[in-house]
């Protein structure tokens, strides 16, 4: 049984890596049950102050929060999604 996961993806507008990341994240989430996750996309070009506030300097950055667990960050366009899967599993165990 998976807990609710929240994905917060910080992107740099339409930059290539950021677009890739959006695409890859969506692809990954297709395999999940809709109720089990939330995606929030934050465009730092549109809202640059968030970068300082949330301490996100590299883009794209994906912040994964598993409910009841801690935050994990993954930087990159998410080509290799095994890491993401890892995070989610570990996130579960840490409840």
């Amino acid at each position, binding site marked *: 049984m998976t807990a609710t996961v929240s994905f917060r993806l*910080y992107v*740099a*507008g339409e*930059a*290539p*890596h*950021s677009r*890739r*990341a959006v695409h*890859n994240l969506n692809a990954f989430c297709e395999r999940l049950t809709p109720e089990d996750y939330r995606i929030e996309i934050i465009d*730092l*070009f549109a809202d*640059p*102050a968030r*970068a*300082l506030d949330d*301490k*996100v*300097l*590299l*883009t*794209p*950055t994906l912040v994964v929060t598993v409910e009841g667990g801690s935050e*994990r*960050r*993954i*930087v*990159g*366009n*998410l*080509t*290799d*999604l095994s*890491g*993401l899967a890892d*995070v989610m599993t570990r996130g579960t165990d840490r409840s």
Partner: protein
Amino acid sequence: MTVNAAPASVPAIDKEPTGIRGLDEVMRGGLPRGRTTLVEGGPGCGKTVLALQTLVNGAMQQGAPGIFVAFEESSLRILANAGTFGWDLASLQREKLFFLDAQPDPGLIRSGGFDLGGMLAALEVKIRALGARRIVFDALDMVLDLFDDPQLARQETYRLHEWLIRNELTAIITAKAGTKLGHRLIEGLEFLEFMVDCSVLLRHDVVEGISQRNLRIGKFRGSSFEENAIPFGIGARGIEVAYGGEAQLDRLPASTERLSSGVERLDTMLEGGYLRGAGILLTGSPGTAKTTLAGAFAQAACQRGEQTLFVTLDSPEQEVVRNLASVGIDLTPHVASGKLVFKSSRSSTASAELHLMRIRDWARQHHIRCLVVDPVSALGKSGNRGLAHNVIERLVDWAKLEGITFLCTSLLDGDSATVEGSSVQISTLADTWIHLNYVVRSGERNRALSIIKSRGTGHSNQVRELLLSRDGITLADVYTAGGEVLMGTLRWEREEEARQAEAERAHEARRERERLADEAARIERQIDALRRELGAKRETIGRLDSGASQITADAARTVMIRTRMRLGDQADGLSEDLA
């Protein structure tokens, strides 16, 4: 392409001063405005300090706001370290300086390619808000390391560079050059050197235990620059680069004021004393009273009411004061009043560069007019070998610029040609060079002083004997024999001879005087006697005259009568004959 000397037709590029003493001169003005400068060097070379100091100076001296992006050390650590330099960052931080912590998370998981877009977006906000034109990326290599693919790292760096140019920022990027293969940037970052318009290479070597730092301009597009590696130090107030100031020496007026050396007869030999603002060098073997003469100078300066700094290298203050007291030079009241500032430092603990900085700081702090460094040759020991001459030269130049009269002593290693700090070279810097040595004659060692040179002064070129006693220092009178100045026992003998001769002459004179007085008295008595005789005789004559005239008269009449009678007889006879 780098041009070392910009052709006359190309306009000089705009520069932003770093405000770091000596560095702006090395760079002929400062950093290239609106361009990127790379500061590279190994760990602990001073890259962060240099970058931060530039930013701080810009904010303090020109009110220029700046942003510091910290990729390695946290901004808290950097601020704490900067506090030791006395920079008031707290107030600057409120309005002029912004520190961004951008240290990569050690637990960062990477998946695929990424860029610095977020950071640049954030920075643009800050730049607008502050109106900043200056930015520092400290330890950019930390970020570039995150890119597994060097190609990506390069790409991202070029993007960064373009962003900097687009935003017209004067930027400093610091990066580590750390491979043991001498001086090379970590592999993959060499493109940084090619990309930037200006690069500053910092080095930090430890030579025989002494830390020596130097910097060199690797390249500077569109500008001339100092090509040599220049020593620098990180002192109490930040980085200071050992460069510059020579050009200003031309406009110094030469003083004609004379300062006492503390030894009256030496002043006489120097036509009044040392010239104000001069550099005076005292050389000699150990024990030849160099420190004593230096102390005499210091004392004289304090007695004139002038702030004096006495820097003793390798001898503790108490020892120096005590030794000077034994020859009648008491410095304690001057130390107590604050006129004399004593500083002692072990030459082996720091680079010559650092000593120079310290001496300048103390001098400024106490507004000194007279400076003594004893012995300056200690700056050339061990790990500082070869550097001392340059440091001493700059010390002499700086003292002249400040109008400080500078006296230094230098140890000569016996009679050997290789001397500590090479006194021969130092002597060319000095205006007055006094040499002290021992003269060995007739089984004795006596101290001798000679003025080898003194610019701007006619000076006696005699070798004089230096005498030390509880009452002070003085130079002995000159006694010569056979063309040589006599010293020690020979001199004393000669002095004795002279004294004896003088005594004898006096005695003789006295006797002669007595004799003549006797003579005179005798003659006086004779004269008296003769006078009396004369008087008596005159009296007799007088009596005789009066008696004599009577007799004469009688005699004359008698003679006349007789003569008449005779003549009458004769006449009668004749007439008888005739009849």
